[in-house]
């Protein structure tokens, strides 16, 4: 206050933040916090399920067929796109 009395120009130079901008900033911060929570929450839930024996993980060897079929499925869909674009 003392500075403002001494130098009235200082008051005018303060950046004016509109209500809209303030609200948008808060929304972005809230969404950011929620998103961060979502990743950490998923990780925590996964670790808990793993600890409790509820999460059954297949070994890479058991998953080999699934991986092969998934690769083939992706390639097949790409081929389907190509076919549609040829028409």
């Amino acid at each position, binding site marked *: 206050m003392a500075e403002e009395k001494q130098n009235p120009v200082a008051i005018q130079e303060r950046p004016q933040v509109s209500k809209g901008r303030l609200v948008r900033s808060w929304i*972005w911060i809230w*969404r*950011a916090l929620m*998103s*961060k929570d*979502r*990743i*950490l929450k*998923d*990780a*925590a839930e*996964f*670790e808990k399920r793993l600890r409790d024996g509820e*999460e*059954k*993980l*297949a*070994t*890479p060897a058991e*998953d080999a067929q*699934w*991986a092969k079929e*998934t*690769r083939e*499925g*992706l390639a097949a*869909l*790409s081929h*389907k*796109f190509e076919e*549609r*674009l040829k028409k």
Partner: protein
Amino acid sequence: MEAWEVILSPAFKAKLAATRTEFENRLNQARSRRAVEEVLAQYEPFKTFALLALDLRDHKSPPSELLRYYETSENGNPLYLLISERWCGLFTADVSKHTCTGINVYDLSEIPLLKRLKGRIQSPFRRHFQ
């Protein structure tokens, strides 16, 4: 040096399968060439991401090159992200067992923070994967 085993959780695999099916349904519903091209433009990044995850699993790419450190979980395990354009995979590593587990898959367009963080996430965290 022992290779890292990469395991994908049922949720991770289910999300890959569901997303692929979703793209197939959208392709079947597309009535014009332009609509097909639009779906294809969204499918290609997903396919790239899915192949990267499969390459990790199949030891075709080392985790140290693809995964980026993100955060530490409540239990103190390091969490890593596999990011490819708008797709992101969440992984955790067990250093003692030399295993890396894929937990879930996210569409970055649904997670604004990750979109912003994309450029800020630390470079590959090699020290855990050596």
